[in-house]
Structures are given as C-alpha cells and as structure tokens.
C-alpha cells in the first residue's frame, strides 16, 4: 500500500515539476485595451500549448475580459495589467469580448 502511495506521489511530483518547467517557456502575448477596443483584434497562438495573455488596460475604467469559449472571466481595473493563463487549446477560433463595452471591445483568438 505504502509502495503504491509513494509511487503515486512520485508520478504526481514528476507531473507537477514538468508543468512548472513548461511554465517558464510559455508563450506570452500582449493585448491592449484603449478607448474600449482591443488591439490587436486577432491573436494567433500555437494550438496544443499553454500560453499567457497580458492584458494592458490603458483606459481609466475597468473592463472585463470574457470568453465563454475559453471559459475565462477576468476584471482588469483601469490603468492596470492582468495576466490570463490559457491553453492548451484545440485548433480553432475563440471569440472574446470586453463585457463592459461589448459593442466595441471584440476580438478573436486563433489557435493553429
């Protein structure tokens, strides 16, 4: 029993440490919010890999980065940056919006 447990613990440790190792080489993209619009409006990311998006909100007021497709909801206060961890994604396109200004703040993430 103890042997099995220690084996499980070892495998879990390996999984965690490889995950931590993978983190340092994670791709990082920047998305800017200004005048309640995203730029760029289309981001291309590698499919099947973890990545990070740093959202730089240059507006004075808060925005909520929301994507039902990516299952992300994150409020970015005015004049702040926030990091969103994503992936690995299947190839395809994923829509996102700034929920507080949905008519102007729209974008797409394309995983290739």
């Amino acid at each position, binding site marked *: 029993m103890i042997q099995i447990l220690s084996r499980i613990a070892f495998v879990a440790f390996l999984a965690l440490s490889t995950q931590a190792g993978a983190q340092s080489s994670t791709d990082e993209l920047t998305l800017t919010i200004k005048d309640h619009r995203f730029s760029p409006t289309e981001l291309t990311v590698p499919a099947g890999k973890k990545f990070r998006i740093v959202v730089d909100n240059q507006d004075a007021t*808060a925005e909520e980065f929301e994507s039902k497709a990516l299952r992300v909801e994150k409020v970015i206060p005015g004049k702040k940056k926030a990091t969103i*961890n994503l992936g690995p994604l299947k190839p395809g396109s994923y829509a996102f919006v700034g929920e507080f200004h949905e008519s102007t703040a729209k974008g797409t993430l394309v995983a290739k």
Partner: protein
Amino acid sequence: MLGSAVIVFRETLEAALIIAIVLGASRGLPARMRWVFSGVGLGLAGSLVVAFFAGTIADAAQGRGQELFNAGVLLVAVSMLAWHNIWMSGHARKHAAEMQSLGHDVLTGSKPLSAMLLVTALAVLREGAETVLFLYGLFAGGADHMDLLLGSLLGLAGGATIGALLYFGLVRIPLGKFFKVTGLIVLLLAAGLAASAANYLVQANLLPVLAEEVWDSSALLSMESMPGRILHVLIGYVDRPSGIELVFYLVTLAFIGGMMRYMAARPVAKPAAA
C-alpha cells in the same frame, strides 16, 4: 440605457436565481426572509468594498488574487450549501410531516440560518462587485446619469422577476415532495459552483485542466443564450466543459449526495423533552 440594462440583468440573474433557491430551500424556517435579505444587504455592502479594492485584489498573489478570491468565495458557498443539504436530509422525514418541528430545531439552535445568509451574501457579492465596476466605468465615462439609473433599475427588475418566477414555481411543489426537489436543486447548484471554482483555480495555474474540452454542445445549447445561462446557474451546465470541471462536479455531487443518503438512512433521533 439598454447596454447597462443588459449587463445589470445578466449579473443580477445569477444572484437572483441563487436567492430564489435559498428561499425555497429554507421554506418553513422562521424569520428566513429577514436572514436572506440581510444576506443581500451584506452582499451589496461587500460588493462596494470589493469593487473599491479591485486593483489591490487583482495584484495580490502574483496577479492571481482575483481568481483565488473567486474560487474561495465559490468554495465557501459550496460548503454552506452542502451543510444545509446534509442537515436537511437528517431532518427530512420529521419536517415533511410537520413543518413546526423544523422551526423548533432552528429555534433550539441545531440549524443556524447563517449558512443560508452566507450563501446569499456571497452570491450577491460576486455579481455585485462586477456590476459596481461596470456602472462606475460608464458613470466616469460621462454616460447620462438618468439613462444609467433607468437602465440599471430595468436590468435589476428583469433579474428579480426571473428569480421570483423560479421561487413561485418552487413553492407550488407539493409539500410531500418539496424538500426532495429543493434538496436536489441545491445539490446540483453546489456541484455547478464547485466546477466554476475549479475553473478559476485552473486560471490561477493551481490545478491542471486535465482535458481542455471533454465535449462541445455549444451548437445544441450555447452558454451565451438565455436558457444556457440559466441552466449554467441552476445545474452547472457548461457547453465545453474541461476535465477538471467534470471531476469537481462529479466529486461534489457524489460527496453531498452520499452524505444526504447516509443522514436520511439514520434512525430519526427522538426529540428531546423540552
């Protein structure tokens, strides 16, 4: 005006549905209205505080503060709902027959309504803080104040109406089956909230996602649609669930469900002579 109405409606909806369930599930408990609406008041006060400190929360824990905060709020709500349901199961046979004994147990302190107060307060807090930030943004951006006020009230009224419809639908369930049905609804609600918490923990890089997308039913029932949103709150419906979300959902379901069965199967304790 419509823009603010739509957002306020969406944010209110989730809280309103949870309040309706809490009110239904605590039916027969004395002073439950006072408890639940105190929860709403506390939640509103809390949302102002959270909105004010949004920047500080977001920067906390190496930029993962918001995710950890949301996950924490959700997990506390899950444990309160679990506690409520497990407690109710132990008393179900007694109070299905006579509601008074339930009131008696509450009065003698074996069932604090504070659990339900907390669930309400947390639901309002989570949605309220976002609404405050959104409205403040429009306000600071120079939107017409009357428009903003009317839009918010309209959205609030819409959300409250749906909550009221759910509540009045619930109380029409015959008393004999009432606590079975509300128990099941609370169980599914708790499982759904646990899955949402898992999702925040993935975003904070604390949990592995296991599988990014176990199925995709967005063509059948999209989460952007109104039925999709309502089902998301009520039973935790997700159109593209991740592996870890499913694990949290099922484990919560199995744990609370199992405890409910165990408590229901126990011999009923004789009421102590008062």
